[in-house]
Structures are given as C-alpha cells and as structure tokens.
C-alpha cells in the first residue's frame, strides 16, 4: 500500500546543508506493521514526516524520491507531487495516513477538550456533525479503553494521565479512519507498565482494523512485540530490512547485532546493558564509505571507510548494506 524509493532529505541550516536521510526505501504491505528502528538522530522521524509532507520550510526532498500510496478508493497517489494546501494532501493527512507522536501531552492543544479535537477530525474526514460526531468520538474513546468516555470526551488534555492521553491520541488518529498509521515512538514518554498496555492496544487495533502501520522505536524489544517487518536505520540509511522474526533471529548487519545486544532481557538482568559502543557521528560529518565503519568491530580496513557498501539481497527477501555480505566485492 505504500512504497518509498530513493528518499533523500536535506536541510538548509546556518552551518550549511545537512542530509540526515539518504536514499531510503521501504514499503508497507496492507495490514502489516513495519518497525523502523535506529538510534536517536538516525532520521526516523524526518523520513516519516516526509510521507505526510510535514517537513519544515528549510527541508528539501530529493528530486528522485518516489512515495507511492494506494488510497482507500484504490487510487495511486504520488505523495511527493501533491501540492501544498491542496485538498488531496489534506485528505491524505489524517484520512488516509494517521500519525501519533512521542509526546501525548504536546500533541493535543491544551485549550480545547479531547472531544473538540476528535470531533473536528471526524467532521473533516467523515462528514459527520453534531451528535453523530460526538457519538463517534465517544465510541473511539471506548475502543481505546478509556473508562467513562462520556465524561472524558469533555475533559481537557491536562485532566488525563499520560497513558490516558496517549490512548486518547490514538483515538484521535483513528477517528479519521486512516488506512495507514504512523506511530513515532508512541510509548517512549510513558511508564514501563503503561508502555506495554499501549503497545498491546496498538497491536490489537491494527489487527482488528486491518490497518497498515509504521512503528518507530529505538528499541528492538518493542519491534519483536509489534512488528511484522523491520527496517534498521543508521545515520539516515536503512542498513538492514527483513521480517522481524528473521532479522531478530539472525541479524546480518553488525549494527543490528549491536542493537540486539542492547535489548534488556529478563535472564540477563544482572549483566550490564551493552549499548552499541562508540559515539554517533553528527549528520553534518557523515563518515565516508560505510556510515557505520567508525563503530564497527568487523570493519574491513581499506574498504569500509572508502567504499559505500551496496545493498545485498539475502534469502527470504532480506536486504543488508554491508561489505561482509557482498559476494562480488573485490578482495581488499
């Protein structure tokens, strides 16, 4: 339902041009969840904002980028070609693709009730008004497991707890009836116990509604829980993709292996968490060759720091960008 190819995003900044997303491609199949995982600054949010054309004015999407989305009515939409402010773009935002952000408190306007903001969306995308819109708002709140929804609908965001707010945010996104839901670290700001509840809720809703979902996180443990497919991002490129099962079972890229070691596990509680060693280079000083070579224990001297690894296809539709898997590479 969504295919992204050659997505490159750069920003004009005071310190010059930076390109935090380079040549990214991924796709989401109907009814499946794609997890995008990567450390802070790897370009996860920026890439998904591009899908909604939500990037700020100083951002530029590369000319070769193609973002194809198939709408509810079966129409093929070239997202990169939509005119700003056009009806088609507004229908896409919310009505076709819904988005949930990391900070549930900040995602709501503090001066309108939860219901006001849900009903606005319902009016825009479902053409319902008055009591019908309100009934749907209450129904959505019920669906996301908010108790006493008839009263909650008239409350302000600050009157709800963090977990409730994120549930309400999910209700808000779903009330427009999207076919694809983008969740950008929706549980990071929540307590651990509530995190698990919200994760389960999102997974169940995704299944019940048959939506496609893009789930962004920096935690591979979360991916194991919710995602069907996974794309591992490092410094603005996708270094490995495949089904979540396969990638977690036998990670092909050294970076993915590092991330898996960093998953907290019950049977290893005594052992210290191993974060991927080394510092993340800044996007303005992107390493040449393989972007990961500055931190890679298996780097091939003389090759990795000079030559960008090509994308290598492995079995079961998996792909990886690493010289270790490149059979054709000239022996260094």
């Amino acid at each position, binding site marked *: 339902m969504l295919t992204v190819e050659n997505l490159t995003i750069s920003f004009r900044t005071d310190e010059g041009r930076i390109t935090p997303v380079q040549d990214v491609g991924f796709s989401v199949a109907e009814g499946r969840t794609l997890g995008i995982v990567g450390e802070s600054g790897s370009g996860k949010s920026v890439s998904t904002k591009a899908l909604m054309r939500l990037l700020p004015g100083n951002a530029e999407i590369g000319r070769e980028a193609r973002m194809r989305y198939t709408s509810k009515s079966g129409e093929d939409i070239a997202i990169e070609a939509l005119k700003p402010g056009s009806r088609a773009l507004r229908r896409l935002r919310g009505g076709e693709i819904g988005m949930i952000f990391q900070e549930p408190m900040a995602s709501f306007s503090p*001066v309108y009730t939860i219901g006001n903001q849900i009903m606005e969306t319902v009016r825009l995308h479902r053409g319902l008004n008055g009591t019908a819109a309100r009934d749907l708002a209450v129904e959505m709140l019920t669906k996301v497991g908010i108790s006493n929804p008839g009263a909650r609908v008239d409350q302000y965001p*600050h009157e709800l707890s963090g977990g409730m707010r994120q549930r309400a945010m999910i209700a808000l996104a779903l009330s427009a009836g999207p076919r694809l839901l983008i969740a950008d670290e929706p549980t990071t700001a929540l307590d651990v116990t509530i995190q698990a509840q919200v994760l389960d809720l999102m997974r169940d809703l995704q299944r019940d509604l048959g939506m496609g979902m893009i789930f962004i996180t920096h935690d591979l443990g979360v991916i194991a829980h919710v995602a069907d497919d996974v794309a591992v991002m490092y410094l603005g490129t996708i270094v490995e993709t495949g089904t979540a099962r396969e990638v977690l079972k036998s990670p092909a890229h050294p970076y993915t292996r590092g991330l898996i070691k960093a998953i907290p596990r019950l049977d290893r509680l005594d052992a210290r968490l191993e974060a991927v060693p080394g510092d993340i280079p800044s996007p303005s000083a992107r390493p040449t060759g393989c972007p990961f070579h500055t931190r890679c224990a298996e780097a091939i001297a003389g090759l990795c720091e000079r030559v960008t690894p090509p994308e290598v296809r492995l079995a079961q539709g998996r792909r990886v960008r690493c010289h270790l898997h490149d059979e054709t590479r000239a022996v260094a």
Partner: protein
Amino acid sequence: MARFLIERLFGMIVTLFLVSIMVFFIMELPPGDYAERYAFRKYSGTGITMTEADVQAIRAELGLDAPAITRYLDWMGGIVLNGDFGPAYAFDTSVNNIIGDKVWLTLGLLFATLIVTYVISIPVGIYAAVRRGGLADYGLTIFSYLGLALPNFLLALVMLYFANLWFGASIGGLFSPQYAEAPWSAAKFWDLVKHLWLPAAVLAWSAMAYQIQTVRATMSDELGKLSVMAARARGVPEARLLLKYPARLAINPVVSTIGFDVNRIFSELPIVAVVLGLTELGDLLLKSYLDLDMNVAGAILLLLTVVIVVMNFVSDLLLAWLDPRIRLGG
C-alpha cells in the same frame, strides 16, 4: 470556574481597600491643608492678619480637623454608599460636578486606545510570525523599534500637524466648538469619535509596537509546537488551523498585560493631552494637588487606580476564559 471567580473577586476587593488607604495617605502627604491655603488666598493683601485660631476655625468648618480615621471613613462612606466624592473646596462645588464629564471622556479615550492597540497589534503580530523572515516581517520590526523609540508627545505633534493639514483645524480637543457644551446626541457622539482617533492612535503607538513584538514572539513559539504539527497531520486546513491553534494562544500574553497597558496609557495621557489640547483628568489632578484641593486629587487618583485594578481583574477573567489550564487549576 466559580471558585476561581470568587478568589479573584475577593483579591480585587482587598486590593481596592488597600488602594483606597494608599490614596488617602497620599492625600495627607503634602504639608499644610486646604484651610491654610484658603486663609492665605482670602486674606492675603487685605491687611487682616490671620491667627492660628482663625485657620483652626476654617478647618473645623470644612471638617478637616477630625482625626484621619474619621475623615477616611467619612470619605469612603460617601463614595461607596452614595457615589459622592465630597466637596471640591477650590471650586465651591462638589467633586462629582468637577470631574463628572472628564471621567467619561478619559475612560472613552482609554478604551478607544486599547481597542486601537489590540485591533492592530494582534492580527499584525500573527501575520508577521506566519510570514517570518519575509519583507513584511522586517518592515514591522523596524516599525516596532521606531514605535518604542519615538516619544509619544513628539508623535502627537507630528500627527497633529498632518491631521490639521488634511482634515482641517478642528482636530485638537475632544469636541468641535459647536458640540463642546451641547447635550449628548448621536451627532455629538460621532463628533467625539472623529476627535478620539488621533489621541487614541498616539497613545496606542508604543503599546502597539510592544504588543506586536509580543504577539509575534508568542505566535512564532506556538507555530513550532507539536500540537500544531499534529493538527496539520490530521488534515486541518491551514488558515483555520492557524487561527484555532497557535493564534488562540498567542493572544494570552496580550490579555494578561491589559493592566500594564492601562497603567502606561494613564502615565502618558497627561503630556499627550497637553499637546493635543484635551481636557482630561491628569491635568486636573496636577492642578488640584498643587491647590491642596485634596478631595478632587483623591477622587481622580482613586478612580484611575480603581480602573487599573478592575482592568487587571478583567484581564484575569479573560485569561481564565481563554485558557482552561488556568480556569481548572491545572
């Protein structure tokens, strides 16, 4: 909301009480009283020497010999119970007679100024923030610096010159000569409006410059908020989105500083009034204070401070109405 209202109302009443004591204290402050001034006026040059006993007699006649607490209670009692500000000694009439019309004109000028300030600065500040970095934004920034740098009375002179040039001579003052003494009518009111815009614009000048900057800064902040992006991600049309989400919050700092604006307008009013030939309260306040005609001075001082306190209360209420986090104590 009811609780909030009662709290603020109680706060306002306490403030008003303290204000009345302060005003009374200020009335007591100058050395001497009107009895001495009266004796001096009436008998200086007549050859009659006034003894301390004579002055004392006048004092008793005017009721100025009672202890301060009695005089305060008398004074406040008259105002609160009958709206009577007492006698104006120097004018041989009541304070109410002296200041009556001027109070309404001053209030009219105040509200005209506030309206001009907000009607211009709020939309302009919002526009500048949305078009941040554009030509209009730079133009407005320069205007704002000018507005803050240029003294009001200078601006008043310049505007008076041009207003005279374009609209004829009758622009000074608050009324055309034929309406000055006439009873109120629609025509007189329209005449007042025609005269009011110039002083209102002059008085609004620096507040406008300041508030444009405030609105622009808050609006810029608000535009970057996640809630705005979230609304955009729900497909809310841009114009509506700007008004409903960031603009709604961008006016909060303006609303919360209404009291300051009133205070500043009152401080700038006297000098602007002199330049534009307006008869308002400030001028009278100064004269009566010099004359030791303390009932007049006190009444004016009290009215001006009460207006400021009440406007602060109104600003609190507006803010609570605009922002549920305040209203609901979040």
